[in-house]
């Protein structure tokens, strides 16, 4: 479990605190989304989860261990971070070696590495590229490669920083399936995202950050009902939530997706006849 208590953080060269008194607990098997306007501290917060950044006050404990008590490598073994730009991490001569990199760093045995890399590449449909240079892959393939690299070492927590940027519909669907699959395997997926429609389909626990503080930490449905807070954070509601707002009491709850919306409307229109 990740436990954040009274976390205060500011960058050494800056005056203002970026994170103010953050208190969060994240157990295994959850899907958690972190949203907030630019500068609200989202990326800064997730960097605390594997010890890249350490709190000025308060603490962050991962599986009971304070992040100040061990190396980033040790925490990364259990908390995997995938940053937004794949070009910031791709460097190996082959796709295979790119995925194997982290496994080698963590001290896995050769046999295990072979199995894990093969699994990861097959799962993300990249096995045909195993001997190609990763720099030659397309943007979408690079993003899949980064995800494959993280899942290869099987961390308990997977943290994704803006995974849907620049992705088209099919790529986003695949991502959604992967996230759901991970949650069923008792992993926790933490997503930082601006994409409200993508988040709405996932129905995660939603943590809203504003000015470095936790403004709200609740189910996705409840957070998207808080108009005042959403306005303050510059967040636009998912269209189906807005639909529910406009058509209450005809609708009893916001539809999860287009299929549910369709059946609700078909029923309503039958009633009206």
């Amino acid at each position, binding site marked *: 479990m990740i436990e954040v208590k009274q976390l205060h953080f500011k960058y050494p060269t800056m005056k203002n605190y970026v994170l103010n008194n953050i208190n969060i607990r994240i157990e295994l098997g959850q899907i958690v989304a972190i949203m907030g306007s630019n500068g609200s501290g989202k990326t800064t917060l997730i960097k605390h989860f594997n010890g890249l950044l350490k709190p000025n006050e308060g603490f962050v404990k991962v599986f009971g261990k304070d992040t100040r008590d061990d190396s980033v490598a040790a925490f990364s073994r259990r908390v995997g971070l995938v940053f937004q730009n794949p070009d910031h991490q791709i460097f190996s001569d082959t796709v295979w070696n790119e995925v194997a990199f982290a496994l080698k760093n963590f001290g896995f045995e050769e046999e295990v590495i072979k199995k894990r890399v093969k699994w990861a590449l097959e799962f993300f449909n990249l096995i045909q590229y195993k001997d190609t240079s990763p720099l030659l892959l397309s943007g979408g393939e690079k993003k899949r490669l980064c995800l494959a690299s993280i899942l290869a070492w099987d961390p308990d927590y997977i943290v994704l920083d803006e995974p849907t940027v620049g992705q088209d519909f099919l790529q986003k669907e695949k991502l959604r399936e992967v996230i759901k699959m991970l949650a069923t395997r008792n992993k926790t997926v933490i997503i930082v995202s601006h994409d409200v429609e993508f988040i709405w389909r996932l129905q995660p626990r939603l943590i809203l950050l504003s000015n470095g503080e936790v403004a709200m930490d609740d189910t996705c449905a409840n957070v998207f009902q808080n108009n005042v807070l959403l306005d303050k954070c510059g967040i636009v509601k998912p269209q189906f939530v807005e639909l529910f707002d406009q*058509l209450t009491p005809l609708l009893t709850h916001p539809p999860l997706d287009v299929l549910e919306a369709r059946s609700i*409307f*078909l029923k309503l229109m039958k009633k009206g006849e």
Partner: protein
Amino acid sequence: MLCGKLTPLIKFVDFTFSYLDSPTPILKSVNLEIEEGEFVLLVGPSGCGKSTLLRCINGLIPHLYSGTYKGKVIVDGEQVSEKNISTLATKVGFVFQNPENQIFMFTVEKDIVFGLENIGLDKEEISRRLEWALKILNIEHLRYRAPYELSDGQKQRVAIAGALVMYPKILVLDEPTSLLDPKTAYDFISTLKELNRSIGITIIVVEHRIDLLAKVADRIIVMDNGQIVFDGPFKEVIKEKNLHLYGITVPPIINLQNVLSESGVNFPRYSLDVKSFSEMVKKEVFKVD
């Protein structure tokens, strides 16, 4: 009585292009006409050739990127392959995806003036155009700021300014909002629409975020595998089935109307946003006020 149309501002005639190191063409026999003043949205899955198409309009292809170039691309009556990029820069402005890598100078003002210095205009003219661009894009207060003092949204506005001062007839944008948060992206697109309305500049934008452009684009072109699959008014094309197979994220409320239409339910009006859909549904379907 006015007769006939003006010749299209942009014309692709049976155009095929493959990059130097690739045997397969990225654009295959493309035929396309865009009139002056249109606001066109260009979409398609990754690798379909949309970014390449944009670069054929301002001359980056074939002048910066060589390859096998067949057919014609005609912009404002002249063939792109016969004019160099620097001349085309006064006809076609280009705004790129990454806000950082298109601002070269130390201050906003200097960066906007960059293109005008290059084409050798006199100082008074440069000054006039500079003031106009700062005003029309609402960035007068950013005039002396350095790039690192600007937010990404502000950088993208500065990028438009740098292109607009060249007085182009066409503004081409390659995923300009993909690195921006939704609110900033929305403001950016509104600015584009305002420019299209007020000065009549033709706008061609490649974007994944259809929801932002639903009420703003007159026309949508869907590409796949180097060819144009759909091309028409936004309201018509967006009703097509299986747009998601082309990587397009159809906004939920539009998707809902399409899906209900397949089930035999047709509404009196087709709405592009939640508000107008709800109002229509309440008044005309459920007869509620």
